[in-house]
């Protein structure tokens, strides 16, 4: 789960990580008042969306006075901000964060995440702050230093010194980094983060350290023990269909093709997308109906798939282990009669109770194209979508 910058900064401050003073504003007048309360000098007005690259897209503006802050906020609020992380459709800005300006001497990069290869936490530090870390890794990998932290022992002082002196900080700044990085690490562990990224970490002309931007991501699997973090979720920032799917416990990812997919199991669902593309077609979505898929769930999944107007055909691919194919078939029949499916339907049922499921479908009188193997399922779905497109 992602949160907004203003929410991340409140959490950072709670953990003793230095952040500039700032206030959230929903209107230009609120932005002006915030700028005034922040001392009336230079402020930065920042669009609050769940994506990076806001500056380049015009979502971050410098203001020399409260009046300018009002002006900047009126330009940013309501705009559709397009960045390299939002996709071409962009995201609408609903709130801005008004933050006191900083006197920047250096910009550094600091992040914590789990390194899957070592199964340790990786602290990634770079002298190239303010840049995309992937670009730095590609062009100047020598400017990135990674320190691995044992998940049981935790972060050691020598590791903080390695990072601090490695970043070219002086001894007083390394002392500041001890509190800064120590706070970041405690936040990461105590709140079950999956990513803490400070980019840039600013060294001011006075030698202070500040988190000028802060990005936090949380482990969805751990939200059950952090209701205060779960409460930070902003549904407006999520894809409406992915959100609807999550509410009924389905894993769904929207794609831009025309073959709707309903599959059980994440691996088979990914492979079904691969199969469709291998056959020259294009999938409209990833959908894992999970191990507990029953009649009701199948119906809900169909409603979700049919909500995508690009869908020209639907492929149901079920390999029953825990899932029973006869229950899936009942769901397909119920969905077809209640939702009125008008696109061609290809159904492959294998595994537990597959014969019973196929029989139910065959006797239903519905116009369903059956498929026996994964290969057949892919070919028939692609052919059906092509025919539907040709006919339209």
């Amino acid at each position: 789960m992602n949160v907004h910058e203003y929410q991340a900064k409140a959490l950072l401050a709670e953990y003793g990580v230095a952040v500039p003073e700032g206030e959230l504003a929903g209107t230009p007048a609120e932005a002006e008042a915030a700028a005034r309360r922040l001392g009336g000098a230079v402020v930065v007005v920042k669009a609050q969306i769940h994506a990076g690259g806001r500056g380049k897209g015009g979502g971050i503006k410098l203001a020399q006075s409260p009046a300018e802050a009002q002006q900047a906020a009126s330009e940013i609020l309501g705009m559709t901000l397009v960045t390299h992380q939002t996709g071409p459709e962009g995201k609408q800005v609903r709130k801005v964060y008004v933050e006191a300006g900083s006197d920047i001497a250096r910009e550094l990069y600091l992040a914590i995440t789990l390194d899957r290869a070592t199964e340790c936490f990786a602290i990634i530090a770079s002298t190239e702050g303010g840049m995309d870390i992937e670009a730095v890794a590609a062009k100047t990998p020598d400017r990135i230093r990674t320190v691995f932290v044992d998940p049981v022992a935790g972060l050691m002082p020598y590791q903080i010194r390695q990072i601090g002196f490695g970043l070219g900080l002086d001894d007083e700044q390394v002392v500041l980094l001890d509190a800064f990085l120590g706070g970041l690490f405690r936040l990461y562990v105590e709140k079950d983060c999956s990513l803490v990224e400070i980019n840039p970490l600013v060294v001011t002309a006075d030698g202070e350290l500040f988190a000028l931007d802060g990005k936090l991501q949380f482990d969805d699997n751990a939200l059950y023990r952090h209701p205060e973090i779960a409460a930070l979720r902003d549904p407006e920032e999520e894809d409406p269909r992915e959100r609807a799917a999550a509410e009924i416990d389905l894993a769904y990812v929207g794609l831009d093709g025309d073959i709707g997919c309903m599959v059980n199991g994440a691996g088979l669902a990914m492979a079904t997308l691969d199969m469709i593309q291998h056959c020259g077609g294009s999938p409209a979505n990833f959908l894992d109906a999970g191990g507990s898929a029953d009649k009701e769930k199948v119906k809900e999944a169909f409603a979700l798939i049919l909500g995508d107007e690009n869908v020209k055909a639907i492929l149901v691919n079920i390999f029953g282990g825990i899932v029973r194919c006869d229950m899936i078939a009942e769901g397909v029949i119920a969905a077809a009669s209640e939702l009125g499916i008008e696109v061609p339907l290809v159904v492959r049922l294998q595994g537990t109770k597959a014969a019973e499921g196929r029989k139910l479908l065959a006797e239903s009188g519905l116009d369903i194209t059956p498929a026996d193997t994964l290969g057949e399922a892919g070919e028939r779905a692609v052919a059906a979508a092509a025919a539907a497109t040709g006919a339209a």
Partner: protein
Amino acid sequence: MAILCDADTRLLVQGMGRMGQFHARLSVEYGTSVVAAVHPGKGGTEIDGIPIFNGVREAVAATGANASVIFVPPSGAADAILEAADAELDLAVCITEGIPVLDMARAKRALEGSKTRLVGPNCPGVVTPEQCRIGIMPAQITKPGPVGVVSRSGTLTYEAVDQLSRLGIGQSTCLGIGGDPVIGTSFVDALALFEDDPETVAVVMIGEIGGSAEEEAAEFIQSNMSKPVAAFIAGQNAPPGKRMGHAGAIIAGGKGRASDKIAALEAAGVAVSASPAEVGETLAKHAGLGR
């Protein structure tokens, strides 16, 4: 022979909820010796003829159980894994999906030096055809034979097994290692076990996007494996930054792409199937097996 479990395995179940009971029953029907179940507070009772104990140590002492299958909910799963290790079981297979990754990172560290091999979490389990079923796989699609199957996914394991069985190619052992970022048994661990198993003559490996386990497997195959390996990598067209169902199936920071994994495996001499429908045939051709 086979790996991890066989006809001599004495299985205990941790977590006898609805799912635990259901799959315990299926394992018994398959011929697996399910000797005990652990349900704290219900010790001394019985479910479906399986004696219930309050703790794993107690169950092991009374029944000689040497392997465990864990169906405990996410919040208690790390605890269940470490309790299995505390009782010095040979094998703990954790089916539970949705365990916080921090819990697993710590549990994995705590398992170092223990006698217990962990498979999973978030996995379908292990089946040695006609001998032992641990977990939730539909064992009826397997048949005994010479091919080891290892996969990060559940249903895609079934798909690969089904393709092999339809070609008349049986399996030595089928195991799902799980779709989470931190898991007990890696591809490399499973490949090493298959390499050492005299009954396994070839291996099918089903990977997916995210992490670098397939690249590490490629390195291992290149330098340590004599047996032919065929593979498929799921998620070849998955968009970056999106979690594809499994917690571990995500392309992040430009890493974990299917194309990189396929290239690494092919460079190591693995026959990688371009289509998920031809995994069985790819193995048959590469290993010279089948009808």
